[in-house]
């Protein structure tokens, strides 16, 4: 560090500032918008100086949107709860199903295993709209339409392939000899899975779970078609801000701030696991 010149340090600082501005400015702007009324947001030219107000947050949390002509009921808080519930349960179900499956695909090479694994991945290639129409009809027939269970099931299309393919890679990275050693030491197949494979793939499972959570949280189209108002997540619920009397930018901004908060917090918390990575120092120095 001693050898870096002043010029280099200044340039590096500028570059970092530019990158931070580029990525963080939209978030900062939304953050500022969420404390403004529509009037201050839409004035020309825009200004960084304004009278901050909590009216947007108040409206979202109380569920009453005071318009210029009428009062609008919005279900933002229940939408937020729906998002949280759907994402958490989907990821939980996805992990319970996906992690053992990923282990099987990584370790037990059986006939057709590659084909099955690829088929599961191909769910991610197909545009969701392609399956939505038949799915809606089926779901109405068997009574799964507009239920949490049905939504969680459909969410597996998003969550499961992601978990399966990420976690499989982590399992494959564990040297087979480490698992063999545990077996030979006298432990059974399941003990080896729990005590060796799961902990060593832990960072991968955390990363996959986090990513799956974000994908589930951000999903729009499945919930839009398959859920009615009381089951809708925030992504669909935000449509309510586009009213006949105009678009409520302030509420949208506040809604965005509230809805990214959980994923943001989760990312900050799990960062440790993501960065930690696999440290298999025991194999070769």
């Amino acid at each position, binding site marked *: 560090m001693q050898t870096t010149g002043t010029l280099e340090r200044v340039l590096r600082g500028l570059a970092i500032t530019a990158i931070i501005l580029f990525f963080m400015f939209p978030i900062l702007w939304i953050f500022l918008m969420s404390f403004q009324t529509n009037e201050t947001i839409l004035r020309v030219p825009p200004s960084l100086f304004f009278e901050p107000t909590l009216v947007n947050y108040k409206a979202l949390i109380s569920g009453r949107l005071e318009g210029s002509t009428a009062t609008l009921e919005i279900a933002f808080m229940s939408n937020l709860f729906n998002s949280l519930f759907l994402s958490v349960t989907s990821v939980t179900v996805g992990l319970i199903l996906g992690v053992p499956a990923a282990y099987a695909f990584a370790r037990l090479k059986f006939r057709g295993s590659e084909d099955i694994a690829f088929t599961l991945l191909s769910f991610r290639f197909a545009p969701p709209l392609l399956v939505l129409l038949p799915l809606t009809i089926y779901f109405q027939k068997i009574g799964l339409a507009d239920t949490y269970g049905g939504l969680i099931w459909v969410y597996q299309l998003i969550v499961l392939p992601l978990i399966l393919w990420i976690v499989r890679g982590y399992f494959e990275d564990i*040297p*087979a*000899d*480490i698992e*063999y*050693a*545990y*077996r*030979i*030491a*006298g*432990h*059974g*197949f399941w*003990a080896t899975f729990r005590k*060796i494979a799961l*902990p*060593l793939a832990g960072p991968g499972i955390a990363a996959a779970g986090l990513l799956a959570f974000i994908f589930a949280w951000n999903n729009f189209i499945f919930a839009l078609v398959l859920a009615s108002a009381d089951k809708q997540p925030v992504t669909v619920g935000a449509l309510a801000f586009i009213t006949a009397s105009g678009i409520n930018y302030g509420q949208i901004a506040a809604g965005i701030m509230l809805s990214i908060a959980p994923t943001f917090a989760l990312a900050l918390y799990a960062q440790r696991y993501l960065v930690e990575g696999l*440290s*298999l*120092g*025991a*194999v*070769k*120095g």
Partner: protein
Amino acid sequence: MSLELNEISKNFKDDKVLDRVSLYVPEGKTLVLFGPSGAGKTVLLRLISGVIEPDEGHIKISGMDVDGVEPEDRNIGMAFQNFALFPHMDAHANIASPLTAQKKDKSAIQAGVQSLAKLLKIDHVLKHKPKELSNGQKQRTALARALAGKPKILLLDDPLRNVDAKLRFEMRLELPNLLYEQNATVIYVTQDYKEAMAFGDQIAVINGGVIQQIGTPEAIYLTPANVEIARLFGDPVINLLDVTLQKDASGVFALISEKRIDLDASYASVVGLECCLGIRPESVLFVDRDHKSAVPVTVEAETPLNEKTVNLCLTARGREIMASRPSGTQGPAGGEAFVAIEAASAMIFDKQTGALIETNSTDISERGKVT
């Protein structure tokens, strides 16, 4: 417990890794599996440990067929070449893993780990995770883990491969005692002929998935089954000279620089065949000009190797011969010298096939003697 392998074959896709391998290790004995990398040694150990199944053939432990017996039920200890320590457990937990599997109580586990760790001099690093251990400590931890369950069969996959020279030397001295105390049946894999000679009650030479020779270290050294094995065992490498055996009234002989090397009469059957004459460097002696079979040579180089000194010599026709003698003994005075070849310890190989041509005298002890 004895260990028996009966006509074991294993293929990976179309690649024949092991081809009808048969072995027998009596209880408490050590068999060294010796061969170059890719010979199938590690695969053989995995088959014995049960983590993979053979395509054909049977493995018997104490005479009992272990087909389909899970690895955890075979009572085997194994040390891996790459150590394969559990990275998320400290050294103590690593060594204790066979004991926890046996559902031993805490104090028994503690005592078992402590005594092994003390023996292997790693008791001060038991709290360390594998990545905080040096290679030597990892190797000892892996060894301790293999021994902890008091297995009756011990598989050691080139355990000294990844450790430094000093530790390898120490362990070469310590390991035989340790193995002896365990009273286990051992298969020891190595690529180092010195280790093979030092540890093995028997050595099995494996190459290309086929067992080429099984015998005592002495037998492998003195009567290697083919030229390749002769080359692999011994340092400096055996001298191999192309000769054609001849015969006259006084017996069978080969000519080197017009000098007769008299050979056993039983070689009469291969007279006229193109052969390789194999002579260990220690069987090439510097002699005076008037010795009856003195071959004139030019001494090209001299390499002192602590306990022995090796001379590289050239015959009149430019063939290289290496001579090895204990350091401190009288060597050649200058560039021109004479060597005599101990015919009794010479080996004759078929040049075409590389196979050893056996004599009638099968008594190995006779062949090894310096005349």
